[in-house]
């Protein structure tokens, strides 16, 4: 993937060089394109030319980023992998990253963030693996009802939870669907028997050192064996000797205790740890590793404890709403009919940030209060994540209701 990105950036560099060496041709072409766009705009007003093109090819270059569902593969009873064909402008990803995906459930657009679970594939498709959370609007829909052919909305891949290739001895600690970014990394490193993944020979040619010399242990926690997504892939990787998988099932081994990690992984001290799972596990690991001075990278999957405050009056998009201390600004504003930007709805993806102009909001995960005072805090306001923030007294949030 790294080399892939390098190729891309050098291609971009080349095209800029070309443009600078032949400025007149580029300028002419550009102005011709601009003129055509102007005529097209004048011909289809009040629509935009893109609205018309979307009728015929919503995945074209220059369109808003979308993807079409190509297939839905069941992983377990309540988990499925959604294979997507992204639009032409998809810029690729690094295994471990996630995407924000917007899908219409029951007629309503919902945005969520999911880890990409394949490395880059030769067919340029991407995939996410979703576990149906009880009561989860989007996850239940994606696992049980999503149909191939459906168009979804997309944002480019994001996230810092990616492999640092300077380390060779690695430990992954994953719990439940926390395996998803890690399986993406593993599938990219090793060709598992999945028709969508690059063959070993191709992988070696493109990036010969990618998986060479790596020593990887995966400690994976799940409620039980049948409920483990990617069980087959993990077993195959383990059997082929590519990685060592140490599964811990609650129903067999009891609930995992971080203190026993060193027993499972005797050379723990020599390894760099990547962990992904619920906040309880991550908090425990952070304390555990900090005590021993070990390196740890984490990706949180679920929102932590909710700490309610006193609530207050929220002014947003011309509306005044009375909020209690436990309702998020995002939920309350959507309920009032405001078109809000949103994403993971758990404080990770930063897709819902809006500026707080005045007043106070409370972070429901930590209880931290952010206060904006006109004249003291920046004129543009303090960015707050509306999906995990509740009103803490009167507050004003700037939002012009133009989502894109």
């Amino acid at each position, binding site marked *: 993937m790294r080399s892939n990105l390098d190729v891309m950036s050098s291609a971009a560099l080349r095209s800029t060089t070309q443009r600078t060496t032949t400025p007149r041709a580029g300028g002419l072409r550009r102005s011709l394109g601009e003129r055509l766009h102007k005529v097209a705009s004048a011909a289809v*007003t*009040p629509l935009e030319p893109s*609205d*018309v093109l979307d*009728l015929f090819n919503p995945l074209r270059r220059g369109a808003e980023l979308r993807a079409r569902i190509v297939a839905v593969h069941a992983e377990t009873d309540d988990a499925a992998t959604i294979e997507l064909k992204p639009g032409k402008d998809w810029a690729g990803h690094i295994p471990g990253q996630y995407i924000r995906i917007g899908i219409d459930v*029951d*007629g309503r657009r919902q945005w969520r963030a999911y880890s990409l679970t394949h490395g880059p594939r030769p067919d340029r498709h991407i995939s996410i693996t979703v576990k149906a959370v009880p009561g989860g609007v989007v996850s239940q829909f994606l696992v049980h009802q999503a149909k191939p052919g459906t168009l979804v909305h997309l944002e480019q891949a994001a996230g810092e939870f990616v492999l640092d290739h300077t380390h060779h001895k690695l430990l992954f600690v994953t719990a439940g669907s926390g395996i998803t970014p890690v399986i993406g990394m593993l599938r990219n490193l090793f060709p598992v028997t999945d028709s969508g993944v690059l063959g070993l020979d191709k992988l070696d040619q493109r990036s010969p050192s990618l998986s060479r010399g790596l020593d990887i242990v995966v400690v994976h926690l799940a409620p039980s064996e049948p409920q483990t997504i990617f069980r087959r892939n993990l077993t195959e990787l383990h059997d082929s000797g590519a990685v060592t998988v140490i599964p811990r099932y609650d129903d067999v081994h009891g609930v995992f205790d971080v203190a026993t990690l060193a027993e499972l992984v005797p050379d723990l001290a020599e390894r760099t740890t990547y962990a992904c799972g619920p906040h309880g596990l991550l908090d425990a690991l952070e304390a555990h590793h900090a005590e021993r001075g070990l390196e740890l990278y984490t990706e949180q999957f679920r929102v932590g404890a909710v700490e309610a405050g006193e609530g207050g009056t929220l002014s947003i998009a011309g509306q005044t709403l009375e909020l209690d201390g436990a309702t998020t600004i995002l939920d309350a504003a959507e309920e009032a*009919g405001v078109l809000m930007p949103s994403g993971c709805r758990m404080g990770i993806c930063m897709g819902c940030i809006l500026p707080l102009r005045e007043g106070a909001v409370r972070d429901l995960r930590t209880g931290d209060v952010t206060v904006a005072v006109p004249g003291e805090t920046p004129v543009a306001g303090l960015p707050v994540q509306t999906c995990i923030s509740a009103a803490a007294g009167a507050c004003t949030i700037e939002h012009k*209701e133009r989502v894109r």
Partner: protein
Amino acid sequence: MTVITKKPDSAIAHLTPEDIEELGRELDAIRQSVIDSRGESDARYIRRVIKTQRYLELGSRAVLLASMFPPAWVVGTAGLSVAKILDNMEIGHNILHGQWDWMRDPKIHSTVWEWDSASTAEGWKHSHNELHHTYTNIIGKDNDLGYGIMRVDEDQRWMPSSLLQPLFNFVNMLVFEYGIAAYDLELGRNLRLPKEKRPAEFAENVSKTLKKVRKQALKDYVVHPLLSGPSFLSTVAANLTANVVRNVWSHSVIMCGHFPEGVETYEKASIDPNETRGEWYLRQMLGSANISGSKAMHIMSGNLSHQIEHHLWPDLPSNRYAEVAPKVEALFEKYGLRYHSASMPAQVYSAWHKVVRLSLPNNWLATTKPSNLPSQLKVLWKMTRGSRAERRRLQQQLDLEAAYLA
């Protein structure tokens, strides 16, 4: 018809305040049942209408590239007329009401939608959503009621200039999109004010509207005709025709909504500033009229054929009005109110009849027969040319005659 509260036999005299609040609760329950069941099939409906409209408009404009051939002109013009009507009525009007905001689709949202009309979506939302729907049929407050120029009620003083209102209404019908744009700007009132007294945003709104008018005209009368090459002139004619057809249609549908005989109007002073939800509902119920007809008629009218239901709940998805209409009609019956519904020709006739009747002095039409036409015309002439006292005297005479005839 006169202002409801002045009538001796008021249509709502038999209702107690408790009845009215109970009626409000029953209507709220109907509304809630629709809100609770909004979902995928509704979303699919509006997307399908939008898609159909876009294909129809593109297809029609493509056919019109060869508009110098008469069959292409006819097919293209018909298609474009329907496309423009769909854009304005079932799509634009309803999206701008926020009927589809619940989908959270940033492309189909009242805050971003723009339509094929001279008036800007922003200006229209203010004058229509805020003023007309809040102050429905309140004389002097609701500009939809005669657009602030026409005489729409017996209680408004008759002036000689009232005689011109059928002509005014006819011209307004032909250029309706510009009429709406002017009325969104409150052009009549603002131009009468000295420049420095006009609201600060007036100049800005005028420039936005002019920009919109220019863009619309450029598309229909320059760009599309130029793309048609040798069919330039016939494409101009086709676009002009489609715009006029759309204007006449939308004007007629809107006249049917509040103008037919028997629809109530209200006095500004009679409206309690603390009007309850039930009272507000009641005003909407009696101030609106429906058009009966086929499914196609409902779609082409933007479901304003369900004007009563639309006025009760302007923000419910238009495709659901048909389903709640029988429940609403049953409530009208239960509370002894008149559910005003008739075919399109009947309602259009009724509305025009009212426009003509009110262009004449009160009771003039009622007291006129073919046999006394010459003398009646003489009375009308005197009322038009005479002094205010003369006018008052002749009016009393007409009122007496009418009372005698009754």
